[in-house]
Structures are given as structure tokens and as C-alpha cells.
């Protein structure tokens, strides 16, 4: 079995491509390299390829993983170079390793993920914030027995309350200042991320900022996925 995992960054404008569009980009990119993927058998054959975890539209990432099977054996370094040559700007392959494992899919093994959230402070509030204030707010936030977020239900499309507290594994933060002197909150989140339990950073953002009485437009907030962790201590 010629199974591999390619790790890549997603950054810049390309972060606005959706999960499905990204799949198409990779499908075409593989074809373009001439690395023939293994196709599934059956009525409607499709290439054996999949992402470890979908990434929300608009997020950048330092830890995207795609697993795939090729029809023939290749040197992972060769695959890495070929993919570097064909992928569009913003999708940057960083490593490629052979993945000989009997697990069914990486997606099934994903467990948690770390994110960095960057939220610029409104000028009116900037003076009130420093690292101590933020640390205090975070521990108050986490000290709640329940944190109720409104989550859109997949089937009904209706918003329903969910308790997200248990899905937050860790949270730290600091107040940072950019080159133009604008202050922002930088939050490190460690959240459930997998098939059994999954928490989107969106729900932390939409509960934590109001908890801090901060009125920040969602479109001013940036999110990046830093790491993806697996049940069986797989590392890429």
C-alpha cells in the first residue's frame, strides 16, 4: 500500500476556499503532478484522498493534513517537491511522510486541535486591557459550570443552545500590540476536534467576547489552526 500524509499551510487569500473546493484543487494538483492516485473500486471510482479535518472557511492553518494513496510507490520527498511546484500560492506543502498504518482514516483518529484567535480591541476599550485582566477573564470564563453557546443544527438549520464547557481543553491569552499600535487579544484555544466530540472556535469567540463585554465584529477576528492532535499519538 502506497499511503502518504502531506502536511501543508493554508494562508492568504486561499483561506477563502471552501473544504469542497480545496478537495477539487488537490484532485487537480495531483493529476497535474502526474502522481497517479489509487482509485476506489466500484461503480463510481474516485481517488483515495481525504483531509484529516475540514477547516472552516476563512481560517488559516499551519497544520493541514491530507492523506492519499498512490497507484505506484514514490519517494515522499519527490511527492513533496512535485506538490510544491503545482499548488497555488497560499497552499504550502511542508512535509510528506509515508503512512503505513491499519487505521481506516486520519479523520477517524483526530482528537483535538489548537487554534490562535486574534481579535482587535475597539479603541474605546483598548486602555482597559492588559495581560492580567485577560488572564482573569479567561479563568472566570472557564470557571463557569456551563457555557451556553448557540449552535446551528445541521438538519433543522435552527439555532439551539449547547454547553461547550467540557469541550474546551485549555485556553490562554495575551494582549498584543501590532506595528501600528493597535491592541488586540490573542487567544490560544485547545478544543475537542474529532468525530466523537468537536467544538468550533466560533462558539468560543461568540461566547467569550460578550462575556468580556467586548463588541468586536466577527469579520475583524482572524483564526488560525496551529496543531491537530490524534488519539493514537500520531504526529505529522
Amino acid at each position: 500500500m502506497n499511503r502518504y500524509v502531506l502536511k501543508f499551510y493554508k494562508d492568504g487569500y486561499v483561506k477563502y476556499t471552501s473544504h469542497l473546493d480545496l478537495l477539487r484543487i488537490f484532485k487537480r494538483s495531483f493529476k497535474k503532478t502526474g502522481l497517479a492516485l489509487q482509485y476506489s473500486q466500484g461503480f463510481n471510482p474516485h481517488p483515495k484522498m481525504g483531509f484529516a479535518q475540514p477547516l472552516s472557511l476563512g481560517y488559516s492553518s499551519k497544520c493541514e493534513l491530507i492523506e492519499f494513496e498512490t497507484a505506484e510507490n514514490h519517494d515522499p520527498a519527490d511527492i513533496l517537491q512535485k506538490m510544491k511546484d503545482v499548488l497555488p500560492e497560499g497552499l504550502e506543502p511542508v512535509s510528506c511522510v509515508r503512512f503505513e498504518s491499519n487505521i481506516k482514516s486520519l479523520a477517524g483518529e483526530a482528537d483535538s486541535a489548537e487554534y490562535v484567535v486574534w481579535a482587535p480591541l475597539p479603541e474605546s476599550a483598548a486602555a482597559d486591557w492588559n495581560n492580567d485582566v485577560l488572564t482573569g477573564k479567561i479563568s472566570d470564563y472557564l470557571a463557569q459550570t456551563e457555557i451556553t453557546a448557540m449552535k446551528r443544527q445541521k438538519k433543522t438549520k435552527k439555532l439551539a443552545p449547547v454547553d461547550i464547557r467540557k469541550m474546551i481543553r485549555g485556553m490562554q491569552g495575551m494582549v498584543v500590540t501590532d506595528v501600528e499600535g493597535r491592541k488586540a487579544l490573542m487567544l490560544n484555544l485547545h478544543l475537542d476536534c474529532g468525530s466523537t466530540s468537536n467544538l468550533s472556535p466560533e462558539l468560543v469567540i461568540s461566547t467569550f467576547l460578550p462575556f468580556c463585554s467586548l463588541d468586536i465584529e466577527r469579520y475583524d477576528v482572524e483564526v488560525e489552526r496551529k496543531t491537530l492532535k490524534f488519539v493514537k499519538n500520531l504526529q505529522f
Partner: protein
Amino acid sequence: MNYTEKLNQLLKRVEKPGRYIGGEINSVKKNPADVDARFAFCFPDLYEIGMSYLGMQILYKTLNDREKIYCERVFAPGVDMEALMREENMPLMTLETKTPLGEMDFVGFTLQYEMSYTTVLNMMDLAQLPLKAADRAASEKEYPLVVAGGPCALNPEPLADFIDMFFIGDGEVVLPAVVELYGECRKKGMSREEFYREACKMDGVYIPSLYDVTYNEDGTIKELCKLYDWAPMPVRRAIIENIEELPFPTNPIVPFVEAVHDRSVVETFRGCTRGCRFCQAGMIYRPVRERSREKIMQLAMDNLHNTGNDELSLLSLSTSDYSQFEELCNELIPACKRENVSLSLPSLRIDKFAFDVLNKIQEYRKSGLTYAPEAGTQRLRDVINKGVTEADIYKSIEQALELGWTNIKLYFMIGLPTETDEDLDGIAEIARNIVDLNYKINGRKGGRFNVTVSVSNFVPKANTPFQWESQNTAEEFARKHNYLTDKLRMKHVTFNYHDNATSSFEAVFARGDRRCSELLLAAFRNGCKLDSWTEHFKPEGWEKAFADSRINRSFYTERKREFDEVLPWDIIDSGVSKKFLKLEAERAYNETTTHDCRHGCVGCGINRYVKCEMEGTL
């Protein structure tokens, strides 16, 4: 906050932000400082539509192949994006470098269908350009040259007030030549007029401000006249005699957001020899010019390798009329199999060979067969010169049913010249006969089977033998739709028809004159845009626009023109002579057909200008 930061915010607030980001595989990056002229290629519809259009990919490559030209792309934003852009006062920008259109040298629109005209105005407005060419010229600020081309430019007049320069005909040679000329003229410090004077020496360059139109009391055109003695009259369509060596994109841009047609495309030939009398494409792309089989194979394979696409399609007006079609298929089919690529062959003439081919390429999934008899009786098919007989249709459908196709689609037009209800009855009869054929072949319990009958409303087009004809009124179309709905109430038959309002507006612009620009402007001001999308089409905005602009719709749609009337597009010479169009119209009234010109020249006049390779080859 600069535009790119603002764009970044907006992208988080809109649907399908991938439409607005650029940077796709094979998109071109140049340093704007290194070029002499910057061209914004604008498609007046959404990204998904525009990115499926081969013409844009061809001209994008043609222009960018020149070192000193940088061509970038622009599409109409979705309504959500547009609302935010207006709210934030953000101008329309190019995808490649996010440059506001006002800073470009050329803003060029492709005119593929009349119902995109309001979107042309809307995009100019979003780009913060004055809409009227005269206002831009009178302004102290220097604006880009706004140009347009494409099939609808063959009657440019409804847009004449807005566009500085039209490109008529094949764009691959004249467009880069004019853009380069512009760069040179600017370097030499020449005026706009001096540049125009040089540019209009080339075939296919129509500059509306060099001409004036006067009208008779009855509203018809009295005279088309030129305002400068050096202006060409008429303007001859640019025709490239040999397309073999033209630049053709083997590394087209691969869209991020899935386009309507997400596949590799190779143009096999331009033009058509059939001579259907309603068909504008069949007239304005003459003569037939083919690429060699070797070239097509090479372009196809290079394209697939450079894009990673998994579907290939051949493009022309009539796929199987390619002179070496069988040989080409015999080479392409195995090549596509080898590459895991599916092959699609649109507008096939269904004969025995076509069946063999379809059987091979649709082994498992038989997607459905489409026939376009266009009219319900032999008489009317003779009028429109659609060389298909009922016997042909039934014979091939019988074969299709035997080979296991269960989905037959039929296309017809209604409102054709000389049409009577008998011709409509003929449509129902064809559908009924096909259902009977299915019973005969597959038995009463033959399982799933469907015949879809789609009718569209006839729109008389400029530069065709039917350019003088009357269009049915909306009421008449509605009556015919009801009549057909009644007649087609049959088991296994589905009946579809098109909206009447759009075909009437389309007809106004298809044969409109310069006065129609006021109608267009009014429609745009009433919020009309993206008119070919049912969810965005605002008929009430259009109705009000007719009132606002005092344009008499029936003058343009229902009125039958006299043969000697001066037509707005007489200013353009498509290459097909008016004499021939008149002759064809008369033959239509006599129900006389004209043979395919591969059986011998029919005298359309195109060979006055260029050699006609296919003449008499059958």
C-alpha cells in the same frame, strides 16, 4: 484602511468568497510597473459563469503572451458582495492585483448575451466610472478606455453611448494590436483622437463616437453617417483566415470555486456551413476554419496535463461536422480512457457513427440524448432551413431506445416566421410518436422513460436572414405555451418553456439602435442586473424602464422591417452580404431550402474577403 484590508473583511461576510480572491492555478502574475498597458477583462456575470467561458481564457492568454501587456480578470460580484462594496464605497477591482478598474488602461467587456447589458452598466458603476462615453471624455479626470467585443457586438448600437470602442469579430489579432498601439501612442504623447485614427484602420474596430445616426419621423433610421472622413464605413468584421497557429490556452486558469463547466475545452473549428436561417452564430462566424487533428490532439493533451482536469470537451458550432471527426474520435476516446478523463461531445448530429461514439463514452451512465428539430413540421423546418427530416429523427431515436437510452430531450423554437398552430401540433406529434416508439421497442411496461420537450421563444437576430422579421407578442407566446401545455399532456412527456419577458427584452437589444441606450440606463437605474438569473430578474424594473425612457417596445420586437429599411447594424459588415440574407429570407417564405455549403458555394459573400476552405468539399 486600504482596499485589500477592507476586502479581507468583506470576504468574511459574503457567500462563496473564493469568487473574489484570484491566485488560481495558471493565473498570470506580472508586475504592473513592467508593462505598457493594463487590460481588465470583464465578464458581466458571476465568476462561476465567466470562468466557464473559453473566449476569456483565449484572450487572457493572447494578451498576457505579450510581454508589455498585463491582462487581469473581473467578474460581476454576487448581490451580497455588491451591497457591501457599495456600503463600504469599495470600487470594483481586478482579481489578479486587486487594482480598481479606474486605474486600468482598458476596461473590456465581453458581450455574450443581451441580457447581460444591465450588468455591464452595473459593473461600470461599481468601478466608479461615468457610464456614458461622452461624460468620461468630457471629464478632466482620465478614465480607462471602455471597450467591448463578442457576438453581441455585431449589433453594437444599444451600447454605443457607453462604450468607447467595439471589437467586431475574431479578437486574437486585433485586440492585442490595439492595446499595444495604445501603449505606443501614449508613450509618444498622442491624443485620444490620433489613437482612434490609427486604431480604426484595423478591421473590426468600431468607435461609435466617430458616427452619427439620424431618424425619420416614423422612428426608422434615416441615415448612418460618419463624422470624420477617415472613419471606415462600414466597419468590416475582423476575420482570421487560419486559426491553426492562433494562441490557444493549454494552461487555462483552473477556477477555485466550481464553475458551471469545470473542464478542459478545445475549439475544433470556428463557423458553420449548415445555414439555419434563425441562427446568428451560423452567420457571424463564417467561414468554417478548422484546426488540424494533430493540433487538436496536442492541445487537448497539453491542456489536461496542465490543469489536472478530469473532463474534456470539444467546442464548435456542430461537433460532428469536423471534417475528420471519425479519425479524431478514434484517437481521442482511447487517449481519454488512458488518462482517466471523461469526454463530452456537445451538439452531435446523431448518425450511426455518433451512436458508436456515444456508446463508447457513456458506457455505464447514459446521460440522455438531446435532439433539436427546432420546428414541429417539415414545412417549418424547411422555412428555417434546418436540414433534418422526421425520418432522420425517428430512425436515430429508435436506435437510441434499442441501445438503452431512457431520456430523450427535444428542443424547439416557437414564434418562428410563418408558424401556425399546425406547426405546434407537429411538436406534440413528434413527442407522441417517440413515446409510441418506446412502447414498440420496450413494451408497455418498458420501465423508466421520459421525453422532455423544451421550447424557447424565437428572437430575431441581427445579421441573419430573419433580421427583418416580427417577434410574437408576449400574449401570443403565452397562448402558444398554453396550447402546447394542453397538447403535451401525455404520459412520459415533460414540457418546459422559457420566460416570455426576457425574450422580449432580449429582442429589443438584439435589433436595437442607439436610442435603446436610454432604456438600458433606465433599467439599470431601476435596479435591473444579472437579468439571466431568475432570482435576480426584475420584470417590473424593466416595465418601468420602458415608460421612463419612452421606448416603444413593439417598434423593436413586433414590427416587421422592410427590406430597404436602414438597419442599425448596417454600420457593421459581418462578411455575409445583405443580398444573400434577403435571398435567404425570400427562400424561407417559399419554403425552399438551401444546401449546406460544403456541397457547393451558396454565395453568402464571405469569400469576397477570405478563402472558404470547406466550400464544396462534400
